[in-house]
């Protein structure tokens, strides 16, 4: 099999993005761009799956390519997760944008190029590609948030995210400059080798490490770098929110793993006393507690899901924090979690889109009151989605949390306490997830309050069926997906 298969997903998306621009230029408003975008993204994802299963030897690819873009199984796995998340977001956009009269070609171009940026970021093995991928992804997302121009909230969210995001990118860039100064390398493996040989000043390395962790923690919206999350999630069009919650987060965790394990994997930086593990564990604890406590007080479901995304970043960071010791198991649980989180989130946000229509968007708990009894089919995905986010068996979210928990417990020591915080804070979080179900089925809308009316859209329905299938499938038979995650985790270890 040809080795170019390993980078074909990136090429497919690049050409699809250009193609969509041309289609939109020559037949504006006529083509079904949502369908084209979804097809391209699914195709890229499918190629990644084929490449994963076929075991192609990457040695045939030119060195100048392999020096910047990872061609390992982890990269392909992240491709699958990002393409799946982006394809499902594109399907949601197909319904949402039409319903709210926002259908314009730019959205799909931005979506597909952002997904490409996320994939480049997740595959970056060099500080240069890291920054290019990060900026490509982020620029697209900023514009996708500000897309609804008439909305003040969208503009506010986008501007906050843009300003704080630029600041975080500058901090990250400063960190990468310092680590280049300390080691003389921009490739992660080279940095790792110099650090392992003890050839760099420890103070400079720790400083660079701290700056890089801050920059990356911002992208995955971990406390205390989460300030932008609720506003950006709430103000953005819901398909954008979905994309941010799934693809951006996946890419953020992917590059975090690559950075921490490949570049900063030496005994000093990864020391469980003074290196990054306690730093990451601290951020994880703060995120879990803050996300779940602040989530309780929300009246808007979209905002609640934003705080839930902060809390989930915390859960995933627990697994990242122990990846210095239980390598394969910890990395595999991160990878599995990202896939489970992607499909669960699409289900929750997609159902929220489906339950609202033009001028009657379902955003708050009150909007959902009684909707479950009036429109049970449209509400069912939301129920499954929040149950999976809660970690209720038999859904994908249950095994995701279970694997993180067992990994943390297998380390013992202080990580046991982190695991206890994980369990307690998710129990707290169950309250606001269950509140959604209570409002759907046990409340009635107040007299005179506007009732949310579900929209009709084949795109959204298809996305929900697809995501729902995988949420249940991953909850009933998690083994094949876990095997895939373990296989991908191997590429970090060798």
């Amino acid at each position, binding site marked *: 099999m040809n080795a170019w298969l390993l980078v074909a997903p990136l090429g497919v998306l690049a050409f699809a993005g250009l193609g969509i621009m041309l289609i939109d230029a020559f037949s504006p408003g006529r083509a079904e761009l949502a369908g084209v975008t979804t097809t391209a993204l699914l195709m890229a994802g499918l190629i990644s799956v084929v490449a994963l299963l076929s075991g192609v030897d990457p040695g045939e690819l030119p060195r100048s390519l392999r020096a*910047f873009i990872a061609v390992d199984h982890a990269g392909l796995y992240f491709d699958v997760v990002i393409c799946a998340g982006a394809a499902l977001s594109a399907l949601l956009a197909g319904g949402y944008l039409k319903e709210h009269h926002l259908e314009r070609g730019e959205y799909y171009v931005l979506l597909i190029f952002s997904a490409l940026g996320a994939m480049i970021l997740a595959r970056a093995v060099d500080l240069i*590609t890291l920054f290019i991928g990060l900026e490509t992804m982020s620029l697209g997302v900023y514009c996708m948030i500000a897309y609804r121009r008439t909305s003040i909230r969208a503009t506010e969210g986008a501007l906050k995210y843009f300003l704080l995001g630029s600041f975080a990118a500058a901090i990250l860039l400063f960190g990468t400059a310092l680590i280049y100064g300390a080691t003389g390398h921009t490739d992660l493996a080279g940095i790792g080798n110099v650090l392992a040989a003890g050839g760099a*000043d420890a103070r*400079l390395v720790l*400083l660079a490490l701290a700056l890089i962790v801050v920059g990356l923690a911002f992208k995955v919206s971990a406390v205390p770098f989460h300030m932008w999350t609720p506003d950006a999630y709430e103000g953005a069009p819901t398909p954008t929110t979905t994309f941010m919650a799934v693809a951006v987060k996946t890419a953020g965790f992917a590059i975090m793993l690559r950075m921490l394990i490949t570049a900063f994997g030496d005994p000093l930086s990864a020391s469980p006393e003074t290196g990054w593990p306690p730093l990451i564990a601290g951020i994880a604890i703060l995120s879990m507690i803050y996300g779940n406590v602040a989530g309780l007080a929300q009246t808007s479901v979209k905002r609640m899901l934003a705080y839930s995304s902060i809390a989930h970043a915390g859960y995933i960071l627990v697994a990242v924090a122990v990846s210095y010791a239980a390598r394969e198991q910890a990395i595999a649980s991160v990878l599995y979690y990202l896939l489970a989180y992607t499909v669960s989130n699409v289900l929750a946000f997609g159902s929220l889109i489906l339950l609202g229509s033009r001028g009657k968007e379902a955003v708050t708990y009150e909007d959902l009151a009684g909707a479950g009894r009036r429109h049970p089919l449209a509400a069912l995905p939301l129920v499954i989605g929040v149950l999976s986010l809660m970690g209720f068996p038999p859904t994908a979210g249950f095994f995701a949390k279970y694997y993180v928990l067992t990994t943390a417990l297998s380390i013992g020591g202080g990580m046991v306490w982190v695991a206890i915080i994980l369990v307690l804070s998710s129990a707290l979080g169950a309250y606001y997830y269950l509140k959604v179900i209570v409002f759907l089925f046990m409340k009635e809308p107040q007299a005179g309050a506007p009732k949310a009316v579900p929209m009709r859209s084949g795109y959204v329905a298809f996305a929900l069926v697809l995501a729902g299938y995988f949420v249940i499938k991953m909850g009933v038979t998690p083994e094949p997906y876990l095997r895939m995650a373990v296989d991908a985790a191997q590429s970090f270890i060798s």
Partner: protein
Amino acid sequence: MSTANTVLLVVSALLALGGAVGTIAAARPLRAALALLVNIVALAGVFLSLHAQFLAMVQLIVYAGAVVVLFVFVIMMVGATGKVPRSPRGLATKTVSLVVMSVVSLVLVFGVAYVSMPAAHLPHGYGTVEGLGAVLFTQAAVPFELVSITLLVAVVGALAVARGRTPKEAAEARARRAAEGLEADARLAEERRISAEVSAHGGH
């Protein structure tokens, strides 16, 4: 590093720092833009002292020549002559952020100042157009191509955010305004009717 080089580096760095402070501290937008120009030109000096001649030239042409001029154009066009409104934040918030940022900056400064860095070996032709071009098109061709996608995203994104309403959106906005107008008329008529009724029944 030769003495002349050190002098160039120190002077440029101080100027750059001053320009940066001026950019955020200036109350008038035009002064802020000019302070930014000082910062950018001084940075070109820093690049020169690091033997990156081509980068220094690009810095001058692109940033000083194009970007700042664009800023000044926009400031002139929208006529932003007024002062920036004072920040509504209290003294406590300002003090805390000043202290935190000072601590972070000092840690960074002292962290970087007293460490040993490996002496870089400058390859032949480093910093020249020729040297940079050779690296860009042989070793770094992949990131070079990827940057073009970043620029494309920026262009499309700017278009998506800044473009005007589509005919459909404009028609909708008109319809909404008209509906609001009708509603207001109806409310006014209703109020008139009620007040007429009240005055007709007078005194009850």
